[in-house]
Every structure is written in structure tokens, then in C-alpha cells.
């Protein structure tokens, strides 16, 4: 148990979220503070990952954009251009 925690806190991971046909996939992710989320946009449309009153990541067409998580908590995010695109992340302290 102690070993698992030590290993987990030592290594930050990159978690990939694919955007295809206006869907975040997986829609829900679990991460730790220090991890990086990388959104891979396969659409020909620009998207955003936006937390109301919080951060926003712009993800241009056919490119990737990333964000390193600094705060623990549970966040709902959406695309500001297409608010029907929704995602969720739970970020725990390392």
C-alpha cells in the first residue's frame, strides 16, 4: 500500500482525451495533481475545454493541446463553441 502511494506520487502521467465528431472520449477521467491532460482533436473544427470560472484550453482543428493539473477537485468542462460537448475530471492530491 505504502509502496503504491509512493510510486503514484513519484510519477506524473499524461492522460489522453480524444475529440472526434464532437465527443470527448473518454468523457470522464481520473487524474492526480501534476498529471497532464492532452486533448487530441481529430475534428476539422476548433474546440475548447473550458471550466466555467476556471481554466480554458483552446484546441485548434487537427492538433493537440495540453494542460498540467495544478488543483485537486472535481471539474465539469465543456466546449465553449459547442456547449453540447461535455467532459468531467476528478483530480486527486498526489
Amino acid at each position: 500500500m505504502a509502496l503504491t502511494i509512493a510510486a503514484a506520487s513519484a510519477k506524473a502521467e499524461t492522460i489522453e482525451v480524444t475529440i472526434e465528431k464532437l465527443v470527448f472520449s473518454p468523457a470522464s477521467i481520473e487524474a492526480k495533481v501534476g498529471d497532464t491532460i492532452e486533448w487530441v482533436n481529430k475534428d476539422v473544427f476548433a474546440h475548447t475545454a473550458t471550466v466555467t470560472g476556471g481554466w480554458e484550453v483552446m484546441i485548434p482543428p487537427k492538433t493537440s493541446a495540453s494542460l498540467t493539473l495544478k488543483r485537486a477537485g472535481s471539474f465539469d468542462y465543456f466546449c465553449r463553441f459547442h456547449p453540447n460537448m461535455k467532459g468531467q475530471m476528478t483530480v486527486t492530491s498526489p
Partner: protein
Amino acid sequence: MLIRSTTALAALFLLSTAMLAQASDKPSDPQIAHIAYTAGVLDVEAAMQALKKSKNKEILDFAKDMVRDHEAVNKQALDLVKKLNVTPEDNATSKALTKAADEERAKLAKLDGAAFDKAYVDNEVAYHKQVNGALETLLIPSAENAELKSLLETGLKLFQGHEQHAEHVAGMLK
């Protein structure tokens, strides 16, 4: 006033009869491609008018998003019809959509400032709602080609996103 509302009613009637005529008489893939492409072009034209007339940042940003997205999806549509060797075919629904959009643009041309902004965004909500209804009930179920159907389904998600985005902008104007 009476004449104006009669014209508006006639346009609405024409549109719904065109849609109904299509519903009983299933549109072909070349017609569906034409309707979907036309719907995109008309929204780009509406956005161009807003970019010329509005001074409101929210409206200008929204209009730019519409131009960018509809041009991108229409480029995909053109690539697809070329690949499938389909020639989009003009039809009653495309004509009714174009006529209604022309009339709306003429109406909006007479407005300025906040009155224009409100009328533009309200029409964007109504227009996307109408196109989404046609996509869901008529165009997607009628499409024979799987790739065309898939593009229309992506188009529906895109247009539904625009409808929500327009509703959000409308809410901010109040």
C-alpha cells in the same frame, strides 16, 4: 403591417409544405447533400451580415465561429460528394430555405445596434433549431449512403452545439 405578416406567413407555409412534400416523397442523396450544403452556406451569409453590421464582441465572436465551422463542414461535404461522384441536386426544400433566409437578411438589414444583435441571434437559435429538426426527422433517416449519413450525424451534433451557443449568446444580451 397586414401585408408584411401575410408575406411572412406565406414564407413559413411554403417552407413547411416543402418539408412535408419532401417527407412524403423521400429526398434522394443528391438532394439531401444539396439541402445540407445550402443550410451551411445560408448560415455563413447570415454571419457575414452580422460581421459587417454588429459592434458587439459576443455577436462578432459567434459570427466568426459560424463562418469557421460551417465552411469546415461544407468543405467535408464537398470532398464527400466528389468522392461519391454525386452531383448535389437543387430541390423544393433548398429553395424554401434560401427564400426564407433571403427574407430574413432583408429584414435584418433594416435594423442596427442592439436591435440587430438581438434579431440576429434569435434567428440563429430558430434557424439551427429548424435545420436540426429537418436533419433528425427527414435528412438523416432518408440518407442511403453510410458516409453521407455519418457526415449528417456529425452535422447534427455541430448544429445542436451552435443552437446552444446561440442561446447562450442570446442570454448574455439581455
